[in-house]
């Protein structure tokens, strides 16, 4: 039953975007404080079966973007504007109840820390069946074999026994597999993975990435991969969006981005990765931190940390300019990468 549900969507890749985020803006407003634009006019498309990466360091707005798409940001204290068009419906205009019916069914999410994302007092199997009961209207008895099947599918050995385990009885990698099984239980069309490998060992990271890749290819699920790890991007993503200070600063297909990064920030991220073939060379980290940002209003937020700022960088906001399949927001792009 599961297998057919998955296989049905294997060949639905098309050019019409499944998810189309337009000018998404999330503003946190605390009483008596300056409003803070966590996400500032982000637009991107995800086509069925495509894997899109959102890359950036902590605080660049990638997680807030995903929570906004999921409708999981708290109501109070923030403003969300723009549109999030999912298969013809603007998710931002849906009511809480309508959104709740979609979450877990059409769009699912995998979180960073697999231990704290599972309910510690409920067996893993029940947490899988809970979703099936909720969205498929199955009763628990009927959902159990399907849950075992899902656990098997994500590579958990002996699922019939494991289904009764509590999260603390599983290893980190298995927990993340279980979370993926839960997220994929209702065969969502879009999966958002928010740094799914950050809390795991390197060996397990590779396994989880391979698993995600395989599942996405099998089922035709579109995937938004949120990460700060360019290695993950290189292995998985079709298209990469680099975020900085709540805006997209560079976008392009995976290979061109890696081969010829145009934005100094992307270039800096790539320069921060140790390379085997450049032994002896010093790493070139990006100086400073997100706290040094300028406001985007009349400048490029990245200018204070940029390796090659020019006068105009602190005077006008750069626009996102599209050339072919790449887009760039920079006054003084990198000519000679790295």
């Amino acid at each position, binding site marked *: 039953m599961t297998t057919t549900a998955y296989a049905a969507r294997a060949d639905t890749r098309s050019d019409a975007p499944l998810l189309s985020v337009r000018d998404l803006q999330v503003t946190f407003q605390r009483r008596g404080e300056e409003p803070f634009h966590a996400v500032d006019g982000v637009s991107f498309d995800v086509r069925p079966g495509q894997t899109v990466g959102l890359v950036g360091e902590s605080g660049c707005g990638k997680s807030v973007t995903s929570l906004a798409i999921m409708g999981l940001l708290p109501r109070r204290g923030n403003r969300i504007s723009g549109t999030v068009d999912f298969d013809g419906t603007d998710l931002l205009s849906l009511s809480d109840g309508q959104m709740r019916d979609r979450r877990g069914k059409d769009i699912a*999410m995998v*979180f960073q820390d697999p231990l704290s994302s*599972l*309910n510690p007092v*409920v067996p893993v199997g029940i947490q899988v069946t809970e979703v099936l009961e*909720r969205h498929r209207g199955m009763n628990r008895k009927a959902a159990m074999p399907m849950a075992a099947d899902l656990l098997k599918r994500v590579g958990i050995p002996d699922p019939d026994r494991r289904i009764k*385990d509590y999260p*603390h009885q599983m*290893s980190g990698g298995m927990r993340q*597999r279980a979370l993926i099984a839960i997220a994929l239980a209702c065969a969502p069309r879009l999966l958002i993975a928010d740094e799914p490998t950050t809390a795991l060992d390197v060996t397990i990271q590779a396994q989880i990435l391979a698993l995600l890749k395989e599942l996405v290819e099998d089922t035709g699920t579109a995937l938004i991969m949120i990460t700060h790890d360019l290695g993950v991007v290189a292995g998985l993503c079709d298209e990469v969006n680099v975020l900085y200070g709540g805006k997209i600063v560079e976008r392009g297909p995976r290979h061109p981005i890696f081969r010829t990064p145009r934005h100094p920030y992307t270039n800096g991220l790539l320069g921060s990765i140790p390379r085997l073939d450049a032994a002896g060379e010093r790493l070139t980290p990006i100086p400073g931190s997100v706290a040094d940002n300028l406001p985007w209003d009349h400048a490029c937020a990245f200018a204070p940390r940029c390796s090659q700022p020019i006068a105009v960088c602190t005077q006008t906001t750069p626009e996102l300019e599209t050339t072919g399949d790449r887009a760039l927001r920079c006054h003084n792009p990198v000519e000679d990468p790295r």
Partner: protein
Amino acid sequence: MSNSDENPKKSLFSRYGDRRKARIDELAAMSAPRTAPAPVPVGAGGPAEDLTVHESGTIEEKPGVSLWQSAWHRLRRNPVFLLGLTITVVFILVAIFAPWIAPKDPLQGYLIDKVRPQSNPIPGPEPGFPLGADHLGRDLMSRLIAGSRQTLIVGVLATLGGFAGGLLLGTLAGAFGGWVDSLVMRAVDVMLSIPSLVLALSIGALAARPSQWTLIIAIAVVQVPIFARLLRGSMLAQRSSDHVLAAQALGIRRSAIVTRHMLPNAMGPVIVQATLALAVSIIDAASLSFIGLGNPDQRIPEWGAMLGQSQRFIYDNPHLAYYPAICIIIVALGFTLMGESLREALDPKTRR
């Protein structure tokens, strides 16, 4: 923590309330690290290339130890806990089997012939009556044993009542937040600012005809705000936890999130508090009976009431007061020792 220094104008009552609130919040904070990582065994997770791994039992992995399990491991060797447990178990057994354990009928005045209202109002010990009798010639030993039953009934029912009320209010406040939370918690604050015994006394005195039930209700009402505040605190900690966010991301209904994902995880400190509340209930029940707000039927033995009646004879026969007082102290101590060591064992900060 205490606000008393900042605001010297605060009344004695409100300072008292602040201290209690701080204590309750401290207990509530325990629930957050309930998801503290259990020791993670190394080397697991099946190979990713092969999505359908069939070989069972190929993965060596010892199940991790849950918080309650590891707490039990430590409690087993904790003499304080064992002492508290022993007292509690003995007390409960005595209370349940009181009619069979008591050597004599606690209601019958066997030694009424020996009571001399002027010269010797209290018959002393004699064969068959190891502790002597009371002013109506009833066997003191049997009355003490039979009295345990009243104490247990009142203590347990009052604590259960307070637990139920606190569960309802705390869940409401913690699950909904916003104005519901504010409303419930301000009411709770008002109740907490009144010393518990004074509050219980007032409620008990409201009843037209005091009975065992008014006593239970009075003490239960006093326990409600403590449980409510405690549960609300740990519910709030759960509300912002990752697994609740994950459940929301799956579109789970709000009622299911509250009952299945938040409540069970928030119960730890509340259960510990219930053990401690039992001790308080027992003492409060004895206090109210002492001043005559308990069961009006004086024939039924009850430790607090026995203590109260003994006051008339305390100069010549202080033992009449000693025995029920010692019983109350020991039982309350038993519950307190058990509750405190349970709390310590479940507190991740003191885990060794």
